[in-house]
């Protein structure tokens, strides 16, 4: 079991544990955005960066393994600067209103959503192309979880991937096809792992829009008869 020091606290980590896991076992908080226990870690959000003695650059806690004799700082000046700036840049790009955990982090780090004036935001219209869930990519933080569970992390369906590159990256389907026209099987796993409200059950979305439960029930009946008529026509 590797023995290491995190924030002056001596810790015995489990063999193979990451710095993030070791810290959390010892009740030391390291924030994350993209990390999820059921998906592979890609080190995207860099919120979990920590300062490791002897390393030139900050290290992602979700990927770097705890090692014997390691000395880790999780709240140094450099770490705070990076986390705060990442939060501020994210808030200037994406609608975080459905992501309470990030809003709490912004409070904790004193990060201002108005830090970057005149900043281009990733604004796109809500995609409402199926009866199960909506896709509101203006709220997407690009954590990749949906793409991963749709692919090798869980479902092996490969209905969604990326479009664009860099700041313009979005989650997309083959030539932007509507989901029912893709290999999507509506397993719902992407909705389950989405942290930011970008993927949302249709019912929840409609209720938020002020549609009443009765109206939703009526829409469902209409939908069922539509499906029935389509099947009979086939």
């Amino acid at each position, binding site marked *: 079991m590797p023995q290491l020091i995190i924030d002056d606290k001596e810790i015995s980590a489990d063999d193979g544990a990451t710095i993030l896991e070791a810290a959390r076992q010892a009740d030391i908080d390291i924030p994350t955005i993209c990390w999820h226990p059921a998906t592979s870690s890609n080190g995207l959000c860099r919120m979990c960066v920590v300062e490791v003695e002897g390393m030139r650059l900050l290290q992602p806690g979700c990927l770097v393994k705890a090692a014997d004799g390691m000395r880790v700082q999780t709240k140094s000046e450099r770490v705070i600067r990076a986390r705060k*700036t990442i939060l501020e*840049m994210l808030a200037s790009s994406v609608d975080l209103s459905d992501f309470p955990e990030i809003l709490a982090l912004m409070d904790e780090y004193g990060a201002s959503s108005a830090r970057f004036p005149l900043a281009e935001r990733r604004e796109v219209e809500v995609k409402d192309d199926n009866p199960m869930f909506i896709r509101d990519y203006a709220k997407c933080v690009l954590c990749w979880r949906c793409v991963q569970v749709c692919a090798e992390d869980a479902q092996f369906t490969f209905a969604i991937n990326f479009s664009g590159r860099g700041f313009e990256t979005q989650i997309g389907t083959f030539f932007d096809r509507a989901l029912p026209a893709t290999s999507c099987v509506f397993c719902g796993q992407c909705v389950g792992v989405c942290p930011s409200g970008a993927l949302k059950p249709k019912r929840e979305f409609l209720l938020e829009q002020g549609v009443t439960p009765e109206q939703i029930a009526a829409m469902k009946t209409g939908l069922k008869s539509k499906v029935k008529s389509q099947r009979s026509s086939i």
Partner: protein
Amino acid sequence: MSDIDLAPLQAELSRFDLQGRSGLLPALQAAQRLYGWLPQEAAAEVAKALGVPLADVHGVIEFYSLFYSEPVGKRIVRVCTDAACGLKGGEQILSGLCARHGIQPNQTTPDLSTTIESSPCLGLCDLAPATLTVDDGRWTIGDNELRPRSMVYGLSSLLTSNCGKGRAATLAEYGAYPALRRALELTPEAVIAEVKAAGLVGRGGAAFPTAVKWEGAAKAESFPKYIVCNADESEPGTFKDRVLLLDDPHRVIEGMCIAAHAIGATRGYIYLRGEYPYILPVLENALSEARAAGYLGKKFDIEIRLGAGAYICGEETALFESIEGKRGYPRIKPPFPTTNGLFDQPTVINNVETLCNVPLIFEKGAAGYRQIGTEKSPGPKLFCVSGDVAKPGVYEVPFGTTLRELLTMANGSPVDWLSGSAVNQSTEQPDSRITEKLENGLQAILFGGAAGAFATPAHLDVKLTFEDLRAAGLPLGSGVVMVFDQSRDLRQTLARLGKFFAHESCGKCYPCQLGTQRQMEILQRLANGEWQMGDSERLQDVGWTMTDASLCGLGQTAASAVLSALKLGLVKL
């Protein structure tokens, strides 16, 4: 949906279907050659033939700048608007061309005859302002050139002896791979020991000891093993690999053959950047000559892969992803390429210039090679000199030459520098006008490219070695020396660098995906005189966050030049 004929594509695809996903970029390139762009039906046909999910195929098309998912002009004109061409009026050429065709940059004329693009660095900085036109599959550089001119100068011509002649050296001119013959007489261990003794370090930018890479891959116990030549030369200001590949293709191939013997590789790849399509036939011809002569095709063979417009694919693991048919996202390291590289197999990946040094080591022997350069930086080095100099071009000099000597040559010294005698003539005074120009006309030098750092006239006497530049806080990088005279507004240059990184960030990690965009916006304000209160602190926070927390070298250096310019006070805020 539409009436495209898929039969010719299906015939083409039979060449790639055995490769599976790894054939994706070549297959899409073949489809685009047929249709001019990538219609949905063609993309679906490629997906079916290669067994790749539709969404993944679209993801790949979307990642690379040179793939088009919408119709484009029969003729595509790419106008470089990056740092070096920007100095020579690149933006004006772009706006003039656009006005003539009545379109905006990155648009196509309604009759689909012409598309005009603002392009990231084309690797033609010595010919600035540069344009590259593709018309129905035929390429021209500038107005009418079929191949870019190579202008080669310097104090030695060990790497460039066959360069600058206006055509590629044939195998007969290059010679019968004498260095390979010598290397084959040695055991793989002895080959690696020789490279180690020569002290060769990588010339691509990271300056990593070449023999350490080779040793790691040689010791790895998994097979097959690969040699990859990184010819994705895309760092703004860099064009040396273009000259080496175009004028003397056998040198790099011989270097790869020696590396293959050293690590036991059976297959090699040359990953050539998509913006160098005119090099492809030259390399293909050289590979055929080498196969016919028996140097290739028995134990070891080489395949060329053409990139599709992505600077990030110069990052070694992103390059592997690209060969594997994926979006060019850099991987998490460790594991390192020597054990888990291309197709997760042991791989050595070296830059073109690095591999070109390998035959030289076996011609001269390690001791002879070390006679060139300094003790800690042995060998010759190519510098890509561009910007405000009289003679932009590739300069081959021994490590240890000073920046002043390099720039004196580039400004047209009266000494016959090409004779190589200048080293012993340091007492001879260069033209006083050149001295004057260097002392008083020079504003700054961008070292190492967009990912590099600025120097000032105070650095003129720095020796061009890894150790001296490191001590001076300057990166050697890929050998970029871009010169700015007093008349230049460096705020415009910083805005161009900012635009470059925002365009080229892959978008994988947050600091770079978001930071390159925010950095570009602030630098654009600086260039436009629209500075906002607090922008200085924002630039520092964004820059240091990218430097400190990004996943790969692109993000880690995306603020390097900007932060150095601010530190040196080169721009007034």
